[in-house]
């Protein structure tokens, strides 16, 4: 696959932004600048960027509790994301949602869910609406390996295939549901095998290969757009950091982590760009640009106001 220079540059910027965002958030948690909890997607950025760039801007997306990379890939302004994590008024959800609920309906980001499972039927319901709209749009739905064990995963895939809904299911298999490995929780060798039960294609992809993601999601998206129904894509990847901020990662070895880090999706994308004629300095400049904007975002968010309790109460009912 060959990308235009502009697209490659843009994708690298998104990959860097996603990585820097997570690292910055991690650091801010350590320093007590952010309260609550967060689920970081360091190491999984390739899944998000590859999948989003295989779809159109007016296609929709639904994400998971580990969703920062998806949001950044789908054009979310990190300033508004940072505000949301800090519970500030300019945040995407006015600070009512936090890390697990970054949603931007305007950019077709239908957001994340704090409960494992229900985002899949909700995304499937959005797909039902898209089918009724007849505007040729699709939705891609990101979720984790653990979610593929929930009842609603199976309920939703059955209905999506029955009604040939325009949706692409992307299971981001990062090898662990919190501390429990997929070997201990999933009864089949590949989660994509579960597609067989619903008569839809199941595809295993190297989630750390942006190009492989683009290809698989692109094909599934076209299939969905043609009215041929859903596809289940399993993107094999790895969560570099712990499940959430308190995780000491006692359930796996540092050697295993090193093996996966050697397969870093961003590093592989950089190699493609260098081969494509980009200079090392150009890449460094893109990184610097992402880093500078992140600092601006943190400063902006730290100074932003919070909503009043009265306004919060007014949001409960329409």
């Amino acid at each position: 696959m060959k990308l235009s220079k502009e697209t490659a540059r843009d994708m690298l910027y998104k990959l860097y932004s996603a990585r820097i965002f997570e690292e910055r958030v991690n650091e801010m948690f350590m320093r007590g600048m952010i309260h609550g909890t967060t689920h970081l997607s360091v190491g999984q950025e390739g899944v998000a960027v590859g999948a989003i760039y295989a779809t159109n801007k007016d296609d929709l997306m639904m994400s998971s509790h580990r969703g920062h990379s998806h949001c950044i890939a789908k054009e979310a302004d990190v300033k508004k994301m940072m505000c949301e994590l800090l519970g500030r008024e300019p945040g995407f959800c006015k600070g009512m949602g936090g890390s697990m609920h970054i949603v931007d309906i305007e950019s077709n980001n239908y957001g994340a869910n704090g409960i494992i499972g229900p985002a899949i039927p909700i995304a499937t319901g959005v797909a039902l609406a898209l089918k009724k709209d007849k505007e040729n749009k699709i939705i891609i739905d990101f979720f984790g390996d653990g979610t593929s064990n929930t009842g609603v995963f199976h309920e939703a895939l059955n209905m999506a295939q029955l009604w040939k809904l325009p949706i692409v299911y992307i299971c981001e298999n990062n090898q662990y549901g919190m501390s429990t490995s997929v070997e201990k929780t999933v009864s089949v060798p590949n989660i994509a095998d579960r597609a067989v039960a619903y008569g839809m294609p199941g595809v295993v992809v190297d989630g750390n290969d942006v190009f492989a993601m683009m290809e698989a999601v692109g094909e599934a998206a076209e299939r969905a757009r043609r009215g041929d129904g859903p596809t289940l894509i399993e993107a094999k990847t790895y969560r570099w950091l712990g499940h959430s901020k308190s995780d000491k990662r006692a359930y796996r070895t540092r050697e295993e982590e090193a093996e996966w880090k050697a397969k870093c999706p961003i590093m592989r994308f950089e190699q493609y760009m260098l081969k494509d004629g980009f200079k090392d300095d150009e890449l460094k400049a893109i990184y610097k640009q992402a880093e500078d904007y992140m600092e601006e975002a943190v400063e902006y968010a730290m100074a932003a106001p919070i909503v009043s309790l009265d306004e919060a109460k007014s949001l409960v009912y329409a």
Partner: protein
Amino acid sequence: MAVITFKQAITDALREEMRRDEKIFMMGEDMGIYGGCFGITNGFLEEFGEERLMDTPIVESGFTSMAVGAAMAGYRPIVEYMFSDFVTIAMDALVNQAAKQRFMLGGQVKIPMVVRTPTGSGSGAAAQHSQSLEAWFCHVPGLKVIMPSTPYDAKGLLKAAIRDDNPVLFFEHKIGYSVKGEVPDDDYVIPIGKADVKRAGKDITIISYSYTLQKALKAAEMLEKDGIDAEVVDLRTLSPLDTQTIIESAKKTGRVLITHEGVQNYGVGAEVAGVIGDSEAFFYLDRPIKRFGGDFIPIPYSPELEAQVVPQVETIYEKAKELLK
């Protein structure tokens, strides 16, 4: 004005709303050819087709969440459960998803959906098909809960629920489906959150809703024969609750009996009693507030016992008489 059954009022409201707004569609089990478990959607398939009357697999959890998604994306789904007891299967979809999406998303979306479902005891269906679980949902910010007692209220409130931009639970008592009453021929809507004084009186207030309200009205007739003038307040909407009408009636009569089929412990009656106790109406009370709900027992299958564990006309009458001693 035509006299129709409660069940017909529901069917009419659904049909008229489906004709009015293309964005409305229905999801549930066996709603098409079968017409739904209680025949509410008989004939709908011919008129509206499979796209707007979707027969789903038996997965309340999955299709309720799908309705949330479709509502987020601009549609107005109406979901039917065969029996209200099946809300347990869809609890996450209702409590964590439907009720909270708008708030968590900082107001970016509306969730205009209705879940309507037959409820209550009296049909010999035993403990898993006879419950009254409405109180659970009154405890959840983001949901509205409606439980009418007459055909007129059922039609007007169901239309209001469908036109509302929030998730609404609409409980229809399955024995109450046969209750008859006058319903206007023209389109009308009853505002959500307004109670109705079904019978004005001065000696005692009986507060109720759903099919138990019908029993309370009959009990009031028995009281009348004893020379007692009972006021009967129909809550109609349980959340948001019309506290003003409750307080005014309590102040007027000074004696309050609250009765419903749902289990008394932690039930709607407790909330209504709390509203009165928290207000100036407390100083007008001549007797302690009396709650009379369902016994703390799953609904038994045996018909004699099934009747004994929920309020009946005679037992409501007796409880009222005790308050008047």
